[in-house]
């Protein structure tokens, strides 16, 4: 069975939200196309105390199996890189030849994914997109253009057709989370000693080892500085607010945040905080609110608790493909049920027409709706589901309510990617509904 490999990054033992979103998309693709979903994690980045809950946790978010990768170096790095895990990664891809390889668009992802593509003769799509359309796996590049793999000129009929792996870095905020129902089985992958060294270099000692790390100074990793304060020596931030005064292109910033209805660099905005007052068009208040929120100490909510995670029923049972959330009301390509808004300069005359929601009949279990905080509910969001709508309506400013578009992400093509086509796919994949 072909597989989708997702390399997860961890922060204090918890997976990054962007990594979980990549895993969520892998889950949806796996369920739709019959691919197994394998989560890969660097063992050194998952503390001993978190390893026991890793299987249930990642199974909860959609993984079929979890493979912990061991580093070549005895001293773990603070920042994830390709070289220490190269052999373990290559061994994992040998054992589970991936059709698709996903990783969050972080500094580590930007190093590991292209290197894996180069090493395995795969294809790398920075900030790309993998979706299921017309019951097949389709790829889009960072500019939204559909790309197809060229067929090899000569095909050896005596051999199985070669599978070209596609490595994609996934920007934060692009996909919704998914849910699995069974704990994932966890195993370890350690590279054998006689395999090629990490960097495959004939010159000894040319690999790089971590010497030291320095925490970012305030404002160094996330800023909305005015352009005058930016110099050539300024370290490009991982997180950047795109204001009129601040510019950070795709190469320099990993997560681009928009403030206001029409933020600068709107084509690349991933996370958006819309305007409160559309008349004044004033973003100063929002910036101050973000700054105040940043100053508050962060009380991490460990999510979800063990009681909410799926528990193993039979240890001897073979791991089965997890069934994800039902598709109803979900954008098939991204799994989104949450509000998005267009970051375009649409005038008031341009009425936003909601796209038709696919008709569904089966309801296996209620959907979690509302904003992002519901992703992290302690109880699968079931308790909040019935209350979520009024809470969101009360707390959200009117302008947001007016501008919220719950339609699927726009697909401008009119033939195969049309909504009618998606309806058909939704109906076909609906749980509890017989295929016609």
């Amino acid at each position, binding site marked *: 069975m072909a597989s989708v490999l997702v390399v997860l990054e961890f*922060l204090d033992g918890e997976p990054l939200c962007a990594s979980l979103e990549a895993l969520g998309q892998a889950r949806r693709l796996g369920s739709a196309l019959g691919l197994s979903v394998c989560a890969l994690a660097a063992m050194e980045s998952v503390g001993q105390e978190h390893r026991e809950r890793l299987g249930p946790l990642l199974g909860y978010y959609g993984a079929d199996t979890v493979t912990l990768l061991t580093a070549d170096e005895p001293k773990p790095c603070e920042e*994830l890189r390709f070289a220490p895990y190269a052999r373990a990664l290559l061994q994992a891809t040998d054992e589970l030849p991936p059709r698709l390889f996903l990783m969050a668009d972080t500094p580590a992802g930007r190093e590991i994914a292209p290197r894996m593509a180069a090493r395995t003769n795969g294809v790398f799509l920075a900030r790309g997109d993998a979706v299921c359309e017309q019951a097949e796996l389709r790829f889009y590049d960072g*500019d939204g*253009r559909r790309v197809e793999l060229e067929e090899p000129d000569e095909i050896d009929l005596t051999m199985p057709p070669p599978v*070209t792996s596609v490595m994609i870095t996934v920007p934060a905020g692009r996909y919704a989370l998914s849910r699995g129902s069974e704990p994932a089985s966890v195993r370890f992958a350690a590279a054998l000693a006689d395999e090629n060294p990490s960097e*495959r270099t004939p010159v000894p000692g040319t690999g*790089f080892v971590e010497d030291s790390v320095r925490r970012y100074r305030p404002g160094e990793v996330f800023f909305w500085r005015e352009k005058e304060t930016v110099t050539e020596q300024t370290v490009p931030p991982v997180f950047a607010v795109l204001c009129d005064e601040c510019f950070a292109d795709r190469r320099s910033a990993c997560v681009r945040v928009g403030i206001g209805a029409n933020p600068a660099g709107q084509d690349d905005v991933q996370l958006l905080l819309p305007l409160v007052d559309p008349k004044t068009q004033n973003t100063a208040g929002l910036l101050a609110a973000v700054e105040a929120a940043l100053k508050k100490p962060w009380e991490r909510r460990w999510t979800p608790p063990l009681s909410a995670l799926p528990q193993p029923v039979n240890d001897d049972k073979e791991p089965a493909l997890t069934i994800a959330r039902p598709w109803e009301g979900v954008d098939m390509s991204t799994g989104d049920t949450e509000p998005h808004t267009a970051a375009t300069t649409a005038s008031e005359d341009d009425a936003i027409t909601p796209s038709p929601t696919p008709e569904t009949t089966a309801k296996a279990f209620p959907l979690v709706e509302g904003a992002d905080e519901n992703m992290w509910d302690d109880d699968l969001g079931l308790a909040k589901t019935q209350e979520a709508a009024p809470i969101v309506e009360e*707390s959200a400013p009117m302008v*947001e309510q007016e501008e919220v578009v719950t339609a699927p992400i726009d697909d401008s093509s009119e033939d195969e990617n049309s909504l009618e086509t998606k309806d058909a796919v939704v109906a076909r994949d609906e749980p509890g509904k017989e295929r016609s």
Partner: protein
Amino acid sequence: MKVLVLVSPLCGRAVKLAASLGDVYALALAETDAVFSGVPLPDSARRVRVWDKMFQDDALHPFDGEARAAVVVAQVARHVGASTVLLTESTAGYLGAAVAEQLNLALVSDVISAQLEGRSDPELVVSRRGLRHVQTLRGGVQAVLSVLPPLTESTQTIEVENGAPSTVLSLEDLSLSAADLPAPTLRTQNAPQRHHQPRLFLGAELLVERLRRDGLE
């Protein structure tokens, strides 16, 4: 030590790092020498330009274009005997990895700064942007460094002398032929079909919570 640096848009940081590391060989894959104008190359830098009509294929996806460029960059590095190759992070994000793979060398991405330490057996000390830290790595001088572009180029007018004309190399000069360049692997449609809309947050605290879950301190 010979350092090869690829001339590309926003390559100012990479060029300055190269100049601090050793003798600079500035490589451009371009049809004319005009690409060198405006690049703050040191006076002693040697300019190398490689051009072939195969680079002009507009139908190539950027990934395929960078895969082809990687073969040429790697071959030029061998040709001039460069120890270290510096590139600026590319839009397709593949060039550095492909060059490192061609040369069987270590790759460090998201490089902010680099310097040499030691005289008899110099080591390369590289600062790299990580998710939560600025990471300092130490290794041999034979490496590929993929340098982050600066947020802004210098506003000062760069007076670049014409200098010596560049050495123009063809694929044949590099012992390459068209067959050595990788065939295209991607077919692409010109018009974008998917437009990604940002994820909406209903308050500043929710946004900050999300950013912190993605690694913001």
